[in-house]
């Protein structure tokens, strides 16, 4: 009887030079010039290889990529509602388990990857994502985080940083900082309550080799895994398209983005700067923060200082949440 368990072992990559040449996410997609999420999609597809099924909950990586009956995915891909990426992946995984067991399909268990945005992962898609993790399906859930609902013209999402200017959080005399709330922490949400999960990591387009290796490590794990990939969005964050990688690097150097792996309870850090640059260095490149006063920046700095102590350490918003207005 065919055993429906994954046995593949995708080898890690050493240098940018050794990054494999084959492309499974090919040119010819309608994403903006300099798109962070598109870059991470290319790297993930390259890392995963041909035996892969992608799922695209609604978001830029669905609408901008799969448009007008043409798609850039050379491997099977299916659109899902932004609510149910995790659930559809669970169904596909369950199907392959029984189909392989019954001999209706043969060969290696496919890589099943949900390519969801921040909304599709921890806002409207949280329930399905969490259930996929809890049930232990052998699939990888990727949250490519461009920190807003960008496909609909840049609205705030739960991972949008405090103080961001989005079309749902426009700064004005009544609400000077624009976004008043502090963001959710997706990897901690997964680590914090899903015993079946063995590997969670954060990654960034700034370090493609690290990203590829983390994708491969996740895909080699038999069971549910989660990657939180920082993918700057020139249009949404309002910076010049050529600076996508620079912005991503600065996020790490200022502590706005932290690079780590969690494996069965153990944390390991990557690219942790000896001395963190002030948050202001990161903010000044981006049009979404130009309205912030020094006081606002101080609050953001306080939040980042608490965060960089280490993942898994609870971080409070440095300001009391505004009272609900009756």
């Amino acid at each position, binding site marked *: 009887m065919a055993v429906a368990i994954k046995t593949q072992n995708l080898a890690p990559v050493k240098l*940018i*030079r050794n*990054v494999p*040449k084959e*492309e499974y*996410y*090919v*040119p*010819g*997609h*309608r*994403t*903006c*010039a*300099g*798109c*962070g999420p*598109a*870059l991470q999609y*290319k*790297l993930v597809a390259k890392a995963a290889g041909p035996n892969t099924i992608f799922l695209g909950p609604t978001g830029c990586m669905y609408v901008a990529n799969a*448009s*007008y*009956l*043409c*798609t*850039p*995915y*050379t*491997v*099977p*891909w299916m659109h899902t509602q932004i609510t149910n990426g995790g659930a559809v992946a669970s169904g596909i995984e369950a199907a392959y388990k029984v189909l392989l067991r019954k001999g209706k399909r043969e060969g290696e268990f496919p890589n099943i990857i949900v390519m969801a945005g921040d909304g599709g992962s921890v806002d409207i898609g949280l329930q399905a994502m969490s259930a996929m993790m809890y049930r232990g399906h052998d699939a990888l859930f990727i949250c490519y985080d461009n920190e807003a609902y960008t496909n609909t013209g840049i609205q705030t999402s739960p991972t949008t940083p405090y103080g961001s200017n989005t079309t749902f959080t426009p700064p004005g005399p009544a609400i000077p900082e624009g976004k008043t709330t502090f963001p959710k922490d997706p990897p901690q949400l997964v680590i914090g309550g899903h015993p079946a999960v063995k590997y969670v990591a954060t990654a960034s*387009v700034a370090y*493609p080799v690290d990203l590829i290796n983390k994708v491969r490590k996740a895909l080699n794990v038999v069971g549910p895994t989660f990657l939180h990939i920082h993918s700057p969005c*020139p249009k949404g964050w309002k910076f010049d*398209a*050529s*600076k*996508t*990688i*620079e912005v991503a690097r600065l996020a790490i150097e200022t502590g706005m983005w932290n690079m780590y792996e969690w494996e069965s309870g153990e944390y390991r850090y990557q690219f942790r700067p000896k001395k963190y640059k002030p948050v202001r260095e990161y903010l000044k490149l981006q049009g979404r923060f130009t309205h912030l006063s020094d006081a606002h920046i101080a609050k953001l700095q306080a939040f980042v200082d608490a965060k960089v102590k280490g993942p898994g350490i609870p971080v409070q918003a440095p300001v009391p949440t505004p009272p609900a207005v009756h």
Partner: protein
Amino acid sequence: MFIIPKDKEVPLGCVTPAPVGEQPMMITGNWREYRPVLEPEKCDLCMNCVVFCPDACFQLNEAEDMVVLNEKYCKGCNICITECATNALTEAYELDFDDGVVRLEKPF
């Protein structure tokens, strides 16, 4: 029965074949205003441009041991120029090139 114009046909259940190599139905080369130009002698094949390009437009041509730009799709974001380790790439205004094309077709 219904008459469906040829160009408007939609496959069963909106299932479309996967592309091979590139997606010719979505040419994006006409978006750019600047084109990255390579000075081969400065290039040490560090592959930054190949890896960091969101549209996979720089590819290594094994035979000539050189990176080649896929001009049909390059959107001119210039990330490659920013990330090139040896400043072998510079931007050049698209219309200066005789085959330079800026936004002539309506990109949907």
